[in-house]
């Protein structure tokens, strides 16, 4: 039974330690900070597992944007919130601990009992990847073999945005999202928000472009673009668009519409919905990815900007 590499053991211990910290620490804000660090270490674990695309997504989306969301929410929790002070009785905690250990133990046993010649679709993907024209197998799976998952997921994002907007009070409809509205940003933040975005946009486009043949892709690029937009919004250089602004909504929906359009065209030209005609696969996939990157970047930014708030709401809030 050869021991795994020490760096893997170290990473696994670090991940479990950070996860334990996130669960057991008392203050929510501290737990959110721990979660950001946990996400970054988890990205290293994904690199060790040979999935670089997932590592990019985990670092950017899993720990970056989710961390920002949770930190902003933790900062806005009411001070006298009973949820912060009450803790379940020791009885509940013991039963929960036993139950969860049992679940984890069963899962671990099943993981150890998985069949040794692990069944895999890698050979099938390798054989058919040339038909999709892209070199990166993950992009091939996301946009050719299982294109309906990616289409469904882009529509899930749009729906989450509509659901988020519907949480606003009635008089706030037509106002601007207010999560990121904060005190007048300190000058270093304004400086960063002026210097960094150009590089961020370049990195995002670069991630999209190499995503066809190397690890990268539209979601990772979109996350970087969204992060740059949010940085500008937090620094107060720009106002988030109004909820009813037609161009912003069009842009948010543009990527999914292009995807549906090309998919429907495929139903006639290439024999099946979401199929690509011979030889045209790569340009079509790249155009879908570009359109989706723009839309997903806008949607991620709007999800972070939160539901709209009435204009007269005090601009300056803690």
């Amino acid at each position, binding site marked *: 039974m050869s021991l*795994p*590499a020490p760096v*893997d053991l170290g990473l*696994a211990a670090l991940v*479990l330690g950070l996860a*334990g910290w*996130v*669960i057991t620490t008392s203050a*929510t804000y501290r737990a959110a900070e721990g979660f950001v660090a946990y*996400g970054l270490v*988890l990205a290293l*674990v994904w690199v060790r*597992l*040979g*999935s*670089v695309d*997932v590592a990019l*997504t*985990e670092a950017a989306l*899993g720990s970056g*944007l*989710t961390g920002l*969301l949770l930190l*902003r*929410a*933790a900062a*806005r*929790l*009411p001070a006298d*919130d*009973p*949820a912060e002070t009450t803790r379940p009785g020791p009885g*509940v*905690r013991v039963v929960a601990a036993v*139950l*969860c250990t049992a*679940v*984890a133990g069963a*899962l*671990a046993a099943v*993981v*150890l009992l*998985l069949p040794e010649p692990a*069944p*895999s*679709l*890698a050979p099938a*993907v*390798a054989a058919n990847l040339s038909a999709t024209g892209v070199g990166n197998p993950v992009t091939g799976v996301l946009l050719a073999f*299982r294109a309906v*998952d*990616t289409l469904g*997921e882009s529509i*899930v*994002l749009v729906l*989450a945005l509509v659901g*988020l907007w519907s*949480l606003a009070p009635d008089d706030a409809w037509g106002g601007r999202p207010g999560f990121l509205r904060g005190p007048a940003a300190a000058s270093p933040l304004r400086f960063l928000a002026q210097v960094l975005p150009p590089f961020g946009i370049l990195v995002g486009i670069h991630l999209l472009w190499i995503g066809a043949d190397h690890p990268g*892709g539209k979601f990772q690029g979109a996350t970087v673009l969204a992060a740059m937009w949010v940085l500008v919004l937090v620094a107060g250089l720009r106002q988030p668009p109004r909820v009813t602004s037609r161009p912003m909504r069009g842009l948010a929906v543009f990527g999914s519409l292009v995807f549906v359009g090309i998919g429907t065209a495929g139903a006639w030209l290439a024999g099946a919905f979401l199929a690509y005609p011979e030889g045209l696969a790569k340009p079509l996939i790249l155009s879908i990815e570009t359109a989706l990157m723009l839309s997903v970047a806008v949607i991620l930014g709007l999800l972070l900007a939160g*539901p709209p708030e009435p204009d007269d709401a005090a601009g300056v809030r803690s």
Partner: protein
Amino acid sequence: MSDATLFGLCGAALVGLGLYGLICHPGALRKLLAFNLVGSGVFLLFGAVARRGAASGFGGDPVPQALVITGLVVAFAATALAVALVVRLAQAAGRTDLDPEPPARSEATPERPS
């Protein structure tokens, strides 16, 4: 024991830890954090399965990797919606725990038909 099995076990432990946090924290935001832990544990399991299926020149089976990327984006959308709901609940009721008895402050609001 290959690194895939190690991280598979690590994923299983994360699922257990996350479930414990989900049960023991009354606050909705802490439950959300615990839910994200369970999600990352499940995706780590997918990653271990992908690593075990590494063949024909790829570092790992690309299908589970694609599923994990889709899952991460869906999990982020869920967290964004849930966070907005928690903040809105905190504004409306001044509390974010989920005990069933309705918060006292909203008793006065009349039944507003749609």
